[in-house]
C-alpha cells in the first residue's frame, strides 16, 4: 500500500487512474482509519461504509473499462454532519436530530459524486454549528489531532481534525462566522470560506442564512482549488447561489504579477497572542522578499464585528431553528400535553445549552420593542463594515491577518465563558458579515508546536487570489 495518509487528492486519483491501487483499497483504508484514529479523536458521527464501497467499485469499473473518470475519482471525502446525504443520519451534533435521516442529497453531494468522489463519513460538529471549540456536540468533544488535550476549533472540528489526521485528504465544513477557518488554523490545514453564494447550500441545515457558506478543507492548495472548482457555482435549488463565471482554479495557481496586500492595524491590537503575531510577521517579510508590496490600512469597524455577529446570527438562528418542533422530524417529548407544551418540552430537552442560549438571545433581539435597537442597528453597522472592505479593496488585492487570536486552547478552558468563546472568532467574523472570501493557511507554529494559521481576505469572488497567494506560500 502507498502511504495513504500522506497522499493528496491528486495523488490518489492519479494512482487509481494508473492502476497502482484500486479505489476500493483506498476507501477501505480511509474507513479503517476513520474507525480507529477517527474514533480516538471522536471526529465522526457516522461512517458511510456501504455506499462508499459501492461508489469505489464504480470508479474501479470505470478505470478497468477505460471510461473517463472524474477529477476526484476515488478520493475519500468527509462531510460535516449538517450536510444532507440520503439515507445517512444528519444529526447536526444535536439530540433533537439524532434520528433524522434526510431523504435527499445536498447539491454539494450531487456535485462531488458526479466528479466520482467517495463520501466516507459525516463528521462531528458543534451543535447546529454553534461554537468555536467543538465542545457543544451531543456526541461529545472532538480532540485536536496533534494536542489531544486541546480543542480542534469549531464548529467544523471533526472535518478539520479528519483532514489533519490523514483520514481523508478533503472534507467540507460550513462557515457562519469562521467555523472552517478557525479549526483549519488550530489543526494546521487549509480552510477556505467562499464568497457568499459561492457554493450551493441546498441540503445544508440552516443556521444564519445571511452568512452560512459551505467551505472546503484540505492539506494542500491544489486539492482545495480542485474541490472548490467541482462544487462552486449557481444551483437552481438555492436562489442565493450566484451565477459567477468561475475561473479554472486548479490550472491557474501560478501567478507572475505581484500582489498589493493590506495590513489592517485593528487585527494586530490587544488580545493577539505574540506567537501568532510573530508567524504573521514572518509571512509578511517572506512575501516582501518575493517582491509583493504591503500597505498599512485601517478597518475601524473591526472591533464591532463580534457584537454585530451576536445579534445577526442568533436572530436568524432563532427563526431557522423554529422548524424543530417535534412534528416533522426528530425528537418529540410529549405525554398527554397540549401542542404548545409539546413544542416547549421537545425543544428544551432536544437542544443543548449553547443552542438554547443563542435562540434566547436571538428571540430577545427580535422581540417587540428591541428590534430597532438591536437588529436594525446591527444591520447598519454591518453595512458600514461591508463598505469599509469595499473601499479597501480599491487599493489592495488582499488583506493579511491572523486567522485566530491564539493557537488551540485547552478543552474546557472557555466553555463556561460564552463571551470569551465568542471573541475567539473576532478575526474571522468580519469577512463572513461582508460576504467576502477568506482563507486560513497553515504557516507556522507556536513554541510548543501548536499550528498557527495566517488569514488572507479578498474582494467578492476573488477566490483565485486566495488560492494564488496560498500557492506562493506553499512553495
Amino acid at each position: 500500500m502507498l502511504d495513504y495518509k500522506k497522499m493528496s487528492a491528486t495523488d490518489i486519483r492519479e494512482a487509481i487512474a494508473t492502476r497502482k491501487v484500486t479505489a476500493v483499497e483506498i476507501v477501505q483504508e480511509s474507513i479503517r482509519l476513520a474507525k480507529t484514529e477517527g474514533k480516538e479523536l471522536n471526529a465522526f458521527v457516522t461512517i458511510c461504509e456501504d455506499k462508499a464501497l459501492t461508489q469505489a467499485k464504480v470508479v474501479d469499473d470505470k478505470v478497468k473499462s477505460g471510461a473517463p473518470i472524474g477529477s476526484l475519482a476515488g478520493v475519500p471525502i468527509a462531510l460535516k454532519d449538517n450536510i444532507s446525504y440520503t439515507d445517512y443520519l444528519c444529526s447536526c451534533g444535536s439530540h433533537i436530530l439524532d434520528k433524522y435521516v434526510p431523504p435527499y442529497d445536498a447539491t454539494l453531494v450531487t456535485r462531488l459524486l458526479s466528479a466520482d468522489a467517495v463520501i466516507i463519513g459525516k463528521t462531528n460538529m458543534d451543535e447546529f454549528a454553534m461554537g468555536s471549540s467543538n465542545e457543544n456536540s451531543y456526541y461529545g468533544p472532538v480532540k485536536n489531532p496533534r494536542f489531544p488535550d486541546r480543542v480542534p476549533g469549531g464548529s467544523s472540528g471533526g472535518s478539520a481534525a479528519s483532514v489533519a489526521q490523514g483520514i481523508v485528504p478533503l472534507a467540507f465544513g460550513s462557515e457562519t462566522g469562521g467555523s472552517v477557518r478557525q479549526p483549519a488554523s488550530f489543526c494546521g490545514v487549509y480552510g477556505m470560506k467562499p464568497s457568499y453564494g459561492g457554493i450551493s447550500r441546498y441540503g445544508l441545515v440552516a443556521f444564519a442564512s445571511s452568512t452560512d457558506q459551505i467551505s472546503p478543507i484540505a492539506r494542500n492548495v491544489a486539492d482545495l482549488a480542485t474541490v472548490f472548482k467541482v462544487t462552486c457555482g449557481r444551483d437552481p435549488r438555492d436562489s442565493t447561489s450566484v451565477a459567477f463565471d468561475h475561473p479554472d482554479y486548479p490550472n491557474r495557481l501560478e501567478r507572475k504579477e505581484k500582489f498589493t496586500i493590506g495590513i489592517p492595524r485593528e487585527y494586530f491590537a490587544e488580545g493577539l497572542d505574540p506567537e501568532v503575531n510573530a508567524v504573521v510577521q514572518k509571512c509578511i517579510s517572506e512575501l516582501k522578499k518575493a517582491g509583493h508590496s504591503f500597505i498599512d490600512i485601517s478597518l475601524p469597524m473591526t472591533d464591532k464585528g463580534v457584537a454585530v455577529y451576536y445579534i445577526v446570527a442568533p436572530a436568524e438562528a432563532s427563526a431557522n431553528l423554529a422548524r424543530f418542533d417535534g412534528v416533522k422530524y426528530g425528537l418529540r417529548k410529549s405525554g398527554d400535553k397540549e401542542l404548545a407544551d409539546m413544542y416547549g418540552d421537545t425543544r428544551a430537552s432536544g437542544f443543548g445549552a449553547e443552542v438554547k442560549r443563542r435562540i434566547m438571545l436571538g428571540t430577545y433581539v427580535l422581540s417587540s420593542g428591541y428590534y430597532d435597537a438591536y437588529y436594525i442597528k446591527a444591520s447598519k453597522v454591518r453595512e458600514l463594515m461591508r463598505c469599509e472592505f469595499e473601499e479597501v479593496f480599491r487599493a489592495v488585492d488582499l488583506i493579511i491577518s491572523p486567522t485566530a487570536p491564539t493557537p488551540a486552547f485547552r478543552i474546557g478552558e472557555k466553555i463556561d465563558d460564552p463571551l470569551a468563546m465568542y471573541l475567539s472568532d473576532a478575526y474571522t467574523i468580519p469577512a463572513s458579515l461582508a460576504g467576502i472570501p477568506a482563507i486560513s493557511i497553515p504557516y507556522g507554529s507556536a513554541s510548543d508546536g501548536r499550528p498557527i494559521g495566517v488569514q488572507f481576505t479578498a474582494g467578492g469572488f476573488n477566490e483565485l487570489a486566495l488560492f494564488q497567494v496560498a500557492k506562493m506560500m506553499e512553495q
Partner: protein
Amino acid sequence: MPLSKEQVEHIAKLARLNLTPAEIEKYTHELTVILSYIDQLQTVNTEGVEVQNQFITAENVFREDVPEPSLPRSEALRNAPDRDEEYFHVPRVIGD
C-alpha cells in the same frame, strides 16, 4: 441594563423553550453579560446608513411555474415521530 427573570421567562415562552428555573437563572445572568457587550454598538454613528444587503444576490430569482417531481409523501413523512400514511400527528390543540 440587567435583564429581569420575568423578561427571560417571557423570552423563553416566545422561543417555545420550557426551561427549568435553574436555566432561567443561568440565562438571565449570561444574556445580561452578552447584551452589555453588544451595547457598544449604540456608540457607532449610523445616521443615514441604508441597509442594502448587497452581500445577498441583488436581483430576484424566478423560474417558470412548471410542475417538477417532488418528494413522495411517504418520504416526506418518514422522519416524523408520530404519523400515519397521510398525516403528521400532533397533540390536541383545542382544550376541553
